[in-house]
């Protein structure tokens, strides 16, 4: 019995010694970062990094909700050093596991983010499912001025905001994983959603129509004609060639990109009424099936065929013309929409070909034509894209009419 107790005591003593922390930290010893911003710094080769913290607050306390998000900025050579400096600037140990969005300033994006991108793939606290956005202006500005109207928690705001991309297709949900795999895939170029902070004083300019038949053209983030609401705007896409930003897409072009990627779910289009050019028809469109894309090589030059089926639901006909009855009326309307979209898609491909940014990923469809990886790498798709010939065919089918069968005209 004595020996048994002795053995037990020795075991317990040893196990008390095992009780090292092993990195265990209580919940209230960590500070959670929910958003990060990356900018160029004034000095050459340095980056300015902003961190937005979420401060936990009890539901019952009625303190100022704006104190929930705290922003700390420091300037460092790399992200890792920035993290070290951050530790000296806040009392609790910062933890990056809950970062929801990484905001990249436009200047840094145009300079190239390859240098900053390194730690994202290697450090265990970052993960591929974090969202990335490019902002016009500086990221610090964006983070500081972004005070959302509805939610009190910044983490929830980012998730809700970015998750609502499906409603319109005006901006896309871009993650670090998508960016990185596109970057290394040499079958396409990466793209990142575009955001900006809209100074609330101006109402922005209304953009004029570019495509016949459509009433208005797209906007970019920061140019939306509005006042009130959140200071931040999510609209458009930034185009990248490799790791450098070379241009941007407006909201309508982003819709085209979304269609080509096959994830266009919902969105209203405003078209001129074909029989009454002064009024407009509203149609709610989505993709009927995945786009059929065919890429073939004709004498070393890629020829791309795109065939898209759109399905829609009429949501407003002010001119009271009875398009709903089907037959040639509906066909005319459908034709109108198809024409508009065909033109938009051609514009989109021209725009991207000029910038040498194959964001739609046409290179992927060319891969089965090759026999081995080496052959495909030798072909260098990204340079050949600007010479490609793009043929687009859009079919529209308007399936539903909303709650009204016909509109009886007023006298």
């Amino acid at each position, binding site marked *: 019995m004595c020996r048994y107790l002795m053995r037990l005591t020795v075991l317990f003593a040893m196990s008390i010694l095992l009780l090292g922390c092993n990195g265990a930290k*209580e919940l*209230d010893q960590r500070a959670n970062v929910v958003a990060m911003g990356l900018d160029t710094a004034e000095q050459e080769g340095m980056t300015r990094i902003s961190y937005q913290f979420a401060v936990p607050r*009890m539901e019952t306390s009625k303190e100022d909700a704006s104190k929930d998000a705290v922003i700390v900025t420091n300037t460092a050579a790399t992200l890792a050093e920035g993290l070290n400096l951050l530790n000296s600037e806040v009392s609790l140990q910062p933890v990056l596991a809950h970062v929801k969005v990484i905001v990249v300033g436009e200047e840094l994006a145009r300079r190239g983010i390859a240098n900053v991108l390194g730690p994202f793939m290697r450090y265990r606290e970052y993960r591929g499912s974090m969202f990335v956005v490019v902002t016009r202006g500086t990221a610090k500005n964006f983070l500081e001025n972004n005070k959302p109207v509805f939610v009190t928690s910044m983490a929830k705001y980012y998730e809700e905001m970015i998750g609502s991309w499906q409603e319109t297709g005006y901006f896309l949900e871009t993650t670090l994983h998508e960016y990185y795999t596109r970057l290394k895939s040499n079958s396409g170029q990466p793209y990142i959603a575009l955001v900006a902070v809209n100074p609330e004083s101006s109402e922005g300019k209304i953009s004029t129509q570019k495509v016949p038949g459509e009433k208005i053209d797209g906007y970019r983030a920061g140019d939306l004609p509005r006042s009130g609401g959140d200071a931040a705007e999510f609209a458009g896409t930034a185009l990248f060639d490799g790791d450098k930003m070379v241009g941007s897409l407006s909201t309508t072009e982003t819709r085209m990109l979304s269609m080509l990627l096959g994830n266009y779910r919902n969105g209203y289009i405003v078209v001129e009424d074909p029989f009454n050019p002064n009024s407009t028809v509203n149609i709610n469109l989505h993709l009927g099936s995945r786009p059929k894309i065919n890429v073939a090589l004709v004498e070393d030059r890629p020829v791309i065929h795109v065939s898209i089926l759109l399905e829609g639901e009429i949501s407003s006909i002010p001119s009271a013309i009875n398009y709903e009855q089907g037959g040639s009326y509906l066909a005319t309307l459908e034709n109108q929409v198809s024409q508009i979209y065909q033109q938009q898609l051609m514009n989109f491909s021209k725009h991207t070909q000029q910038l040498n940014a194959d964001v739609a990923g046409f290179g992927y469809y060319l891969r089965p034509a090759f026999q081995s990886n080496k052959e495909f790498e030798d072909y260098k798709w990204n340079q050949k894209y600007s010479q490609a010939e793009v043929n687009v065919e859009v079919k529209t089918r308007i399936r539903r009419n909303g709650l009204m069968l016909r509109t009886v005209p007023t006298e």
Partner: protein
Amino acid sequence: MRKDGIQTIYTSIKNILVYQPSKQPDPFVLDENQQDTKKINCDPIPLDSSESLQQLEAMVQYAKRLVTFIEDYIEELHNGQWFGKRREWKVQYDALKQQQTEINAILEKKNNDDNVSEPTISTSLEENQKKIEEIYQLPLNKDVVIRKFIISTQPEVKALLIFMDGLADKKVMNMAVLQPLMLLQNQQESDSDVVDFIIEQCLPSGQASRVGSFKEVQQGINTGDAVLFLDGIGEAVTIETKGAEHRGVDRPATEQSVRGSQNAFTEVLRVNTALIRSMLHSSDLITEMIPVGKRGHSNCAIMYLKTIANEELVAEVRRRIKGINTDIIIDSGILEHFIVDFPSNPFPQTLSTERPDRVVVHLVEGRVAILVDGSPFGHIAPISLFTLMHSADDFSMHFYYSNFLRMIRWVGGLISMLLPALYLAISTFHQEAIPTELLLSITAARGQVPFPTIFEILLMELAFELIREGGLRIPGILGSTLGIVGAIILGQAAVSAKIVSPIMVIVIAVTGLASYSIPEYRLASAFRIFRLVFVFMALVMGLVGVACSFFVLTGILSSLKSFGMPYLAPIAPKTTSGGDVILRKPVHMQQRRPDELNTQDVIRQGDVSRPWTKQIPTGGDDS
């Protein structure tokens, strides 16, 4: 020669260094039936045969020498030659005396081995009475009553009736023993045996038997029989008069059920066996009685179905119970720990129940039931872990609902073992797994608590155990009130005083509730012990520690055996299950008995267990 030398050196080093396992008998394994391999029964040879044989030989030799010595001495006396050989006689006499002391020592040792003396009943009534008074320390011991009377036969016989006050039923004694012997006139035929005559013709009692030694007399008196001594006869008669006060058959205290019989065992062994027999009317049901305990002599009953239960299993159970060497066994739980394979493992290796219907169900499956006099809990062996999670009225409900309840019980079992450890691991090591909103609100709540999470867990566990343990001992009316008061107010006050965080109260409360969903109390206790181990592992190594210890726990359970049957039987060694493991099949689809019990008869339902479905009903058509 060289090779031999190397070989010997190698073997000698090996013998020094290599571990030699101790010579233990192989553990019992519940194997397949040995059909048609009946061994020839030899007489069992006792283990220390050589020693007792030597002793017997020594005694026989001593007796022979004594006899020859006496014969020679008488002869010499007759011859008148003894004086000259005085010295030789003295030497022989001394040698014989020394031998006698040795023999006496052996005889004494033999006599002391049995606690009771072996003297047989003498023919003198006074001597018997004196012996009884000596054994029971009368008149100090007021429990034993001696009643002298005269039996009214021709000629009259003096008799002595001895019984234990309180254990013997007075009415039976007066009506069935004293009255016929004293009052009724009987003629005795002079040739026949008096005892036989009395037993067969005078005693209208249910059981009466003749005994020849005081050991059996004591056993009879101690259990409540009345013993009748007759003047001039060297035997006694024990008469069945058991009738001690006992609790009536009541509802089960710990295993309530919604549907299902509401009988429960009581403390009297005969009542318990009667309850089982009243549910299982089979001629194959055998009840063996084995006395256990040297001073206590309580009876232990083994019940099994002869044509179903594996014979080796029954023999093994019998062997283990007979091989117990202790003073007294008052509870079946104590008996259980004497006979299981792994007494140091907290997982229960027999099922303890106080409901006869559960016992009957398991008897029919081929298991063995063990009941102990004085304990209202019966034990069933062998069992698997899955049997412990079945409840009594699982079969009375529809199988969808009872399967749903069983899943809840299993989930409850896992929760009761793992939840605090998982919470500790995730909140201190792997915080990214918690959704951000929940994390922020937990952090806000926890931020005001000055203690680390492990301290909170231990404190709340301690509080919960205190409430539970205290609730056991509070007198009935206050019990539930204080439980509620303790739990709610203690929890609420602790949260307000910022000693624990609200989430911790929830975690511990859910864990406690989950542990009450486990039907078997001892299994819940085993889970509670391992919960602390898991919490400790999570404290040191997070989820890695929890995973490692869970694996080791499963390994320990897989190597656990309950009477030679693997503990995780239908799943770990994959055997045909019999339809009732974690989820159960509908009652008409359970055609086989559990394979791991290796019963003699494997099929318990025919192929078509509802023949009425195949027959044409007698009613009309539906047209």
